[in-house]
């Protein structure tokens, strides 16, 4: 439904978007994930018509949006910090898009009530925007963006400003609302938890380019390259050469899953794939640090002559700082990554 074709935007010589190709299907929820400054917001602004493209095209329902001003594109955008109109009450904010489309008063009132019910703020029409809490503002912003029934709804860091517990609750609510309405959504966020919880498909962006695109599970299980792996929080990444079922690494000869790409490459060991055994077995390491993570303990291990390793241990089995342990690797938790495309 939405198609970007080689979309590029340059700011003073630096490419914020660099030849981005992207398709979003009807009713699909796509989440663009990436570090700040990676061009995510620019992508949304380009689709919204707030940022002209330097080259490339944007199609919505096969219509070229080139030259169509923002207010005629029929897409919705929820801003990072909501940007509710301070001089209007909640009802006035939600009804704004309808008024711009010359909806009748009755129609506006009905739709506003409907949406405030939907976002869980029934009867809030006359409340002042300033009196709303962060979560309530977020709900009003959502209602406002949904009210004119946009063909495509875009969310810019939708939950960025909220505290953690509220975020986790709202992300579930959002997905539920979009499922129910069949809304097509393009969201951007730097928070992987948010992206994985919300999206049908995750698109990882780096320096204005798409680094990987796939379902949350695919991206999590098979990061396309070292950048994606490290962005997802994996630190056990090393250069390697794969021969058959084994890979040569500074940590020794590691087993890899059948069908892994052969030859030189990069290798990821998930922390759960690092098993601690008696110091007499496997790779000998010293425990450098341990961090309590709630469900497990992250243990930082230092082999004698190689880069450090991170292991995830059950609470009861975690060794103390300074202990000597041995390490063996589990092939199921090892991924051979594609080579990183470095410019």
């Amino acid at each position, binding site marked *: 439904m939405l198609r970007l074709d080689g979309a590029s935007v340059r700011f003073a010589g630096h490419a914020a978007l660099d030849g981005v190709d992207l398709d979003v299907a009807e009713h699909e929820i796509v989440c663009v994930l990436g570090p700040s400054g990676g061009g995510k917001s620019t992508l949304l602004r380009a689709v*919204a*018509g*707030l940022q002209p493209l330097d080259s490339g095209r944007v199609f919505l329902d096969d219509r070229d949006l080139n030259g169509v*001003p*923002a*207010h*005629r*594109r*029929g*897409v*919705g*955008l929820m*801003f990072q*910090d909501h*940007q509710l*109109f301070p*001089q209007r009450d909640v009802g006035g904010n939600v009804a*704004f*898009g309808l008024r*711009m*489309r010359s909806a009748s008063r009755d129609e506006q009132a009905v739709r506003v009530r409907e949406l405030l019910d939907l976002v869980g703020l029934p009867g809030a029409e006359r409340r002042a925007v300033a009196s709303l809490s962060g979560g309530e503002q977020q709900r009003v912003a959502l209602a*406002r*963006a949904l009210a*004119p029934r946009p063909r495509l709804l875009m969310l810019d860091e939708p939950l960025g400003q909220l505290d953690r517990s509220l975020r986790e609750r709202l992300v579930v609510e959002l997905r539920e609302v979009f499922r129910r309405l069949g809304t097509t959504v393009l969201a951007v966020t730097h928070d992987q938890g948010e992206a994985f919880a919300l999206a049908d498909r995750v698109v990882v962006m780096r320096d204005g380019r798409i680094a990987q695109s796939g379902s949350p599970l695919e991206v999590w299980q098979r990061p396309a390259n070292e950048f994606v792996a490290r962005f997802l929080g994996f630190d056990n990444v090393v250069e390697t050469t794969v021969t058959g079922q084994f890979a040569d690494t500074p940590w020794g000869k590691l087993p890899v899953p059948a069908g892994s790409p052969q030859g030189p490459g990069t290798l990821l060991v998930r922390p759960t794939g690092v098993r601690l055994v008696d110091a007499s077995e496997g790779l000998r390491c010293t425990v450098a640090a341990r961090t309590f993570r709630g469900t497990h303990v992250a243990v930082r291990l230092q082999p004698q002559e190689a880069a450090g390793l991170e292991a995830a241990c059950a609470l009861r089995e975690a060794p103390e700082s300074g202990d000597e342990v041995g390490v063996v690797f589990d092939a199921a938790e090892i991924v051979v990554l594609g080579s990183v495309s470095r410019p």
Partner: protein
Amino acid sequence: MAVPVAFFAVFFAYPVAAIVRRGLKVGGTWQWGRIADVLMDSGIRHVLWFTTWQALASTALTLLVALPGAYVFARLDFPGKQVLRVVVTVPFVLPTVVVGTAFLALVGRGGLLDDLWGVRLDTTVWAILLAHVFFNYAVVVRTVGGLWAQLDPRQEEAARMLGASRLAAWRKVTLPALSPAVAAAALMVFLFTFTSFGVVQILGGPTFSTLEVEIYRQTSQIFDLSTAAVLTIIQFATVGAILVVHAWTVRRGESALRLVDAARTARRPRGVGQWALLGAVLVTVALLLVLPPAVLVARSLDAPGFAYYKALTHADGGTFLVAPIQAIGNSLRYAVAATSIAVLIGSLAAAALARRGAGRLVRGFDALLMLPLGVSAVTVGFGFLITLDKPPLDLRGSWILVPLAQALVGVPFVVRTMLPVLRAVDERLREAAAVLGASPWRVWREVDLPIVRRALLIAAGFAFAVSLGEFGATVFIARPDNPTLPVAVARLIGRPGDLNYGQAMALSTILMVVCAVALLVLERLRTERTGEL
């Protein structure tokens, strides 16, 4: 953007250029040598010298008198502060002619001081200086006091904790933070006093003459256009230089100061020193700012049974073709028209200037908009007469000529008031509206207008007061049968006789009341974040 540029090109640049051209281009060649000739003239050099030193003296005196006032308003909290703030501001919007007559009533022949102690100052430069202080007190209090109130007092406290004495802490911490504001205020005062016309015209007599007064004399009495043109260029260059320095000072002043809510920094006066300072400021305000207008009102009521006011309703055939009272109607009509023009042009300009990504060129226009404040109004007025008299722009017979000239002076005030507010509107609010389907025009109406409505009203009020008091240009283009209030007052003053004098006082009083009412309405509307003037 195009509209304000065209407006200034046609109604400002063109008339001024035409005057200069007429004065200096003889037989097809530019007579640049005239500049040197004029500058060598001892009379002109005297005028230049006087203009400069009286402006410097006025500025110094204003700072001296008003800085304690700025402190009191910024840091002390006392009953009646709000009222006093308004009282202090009223003089700024009073027409120069009114101020001139008020000081005449106080220190002139037969004035209050003359009656009491036989003291007359109207033949001395002191009358002019005092009138200038009267005018510009508010400029200093507002500009400096406004910033002072927002400076965090804890900065000074931090310096005290590090061992600085009270005075040293002020000198090392507060003064440097204030200095850009003081410099900006001083430059504004210098600008206003350097180009002073109405006050000097009335109080200066034949002895004292500023550039502007001399331009008026050369143009309307001696008909020496080339001298007038040279003087216009000199004034233009000086004002331009002052504005450049001012813009630079203001920009420097925007450096990272930690500002706090002004309401939290003021405290009840403590100790003898602060009470004495408060008292001194109150006495100064009473003597300098309240007494002159009060005397003016008293003098206008001197004759029994409101005789002076009643006389205003008769056309005596001598001074005027019509009854002076009609000037009120004229003035109000002109001022309303001028205000509409100024608000329209000014808000278009402000909107263009506030747009993000406005380039160097546009920011240059920002400073340019201030020029009409300082360029000889007399030149503009006379320029109107000689340029706007042929098709396609034949406005000579049209009443719109006066409002156009007055609007020129009103626009800078409108821009100054609107710009900070417009700049404060978050660009993304506009984007949010656009994404929700609002066209650019709807965005302006739905997002910008509700936010700037208050500022717009304040700007309109300023433009109204300024138009009402405009004298330099109006004195040229207002037709004898349609005088405005300031023009009528000036003519009455110029005539001998108690009745004319009394009528001038009465008319001034009326003008003062109208301006004061306009300001009072403004003060009710004023918000935290409006304007720099």
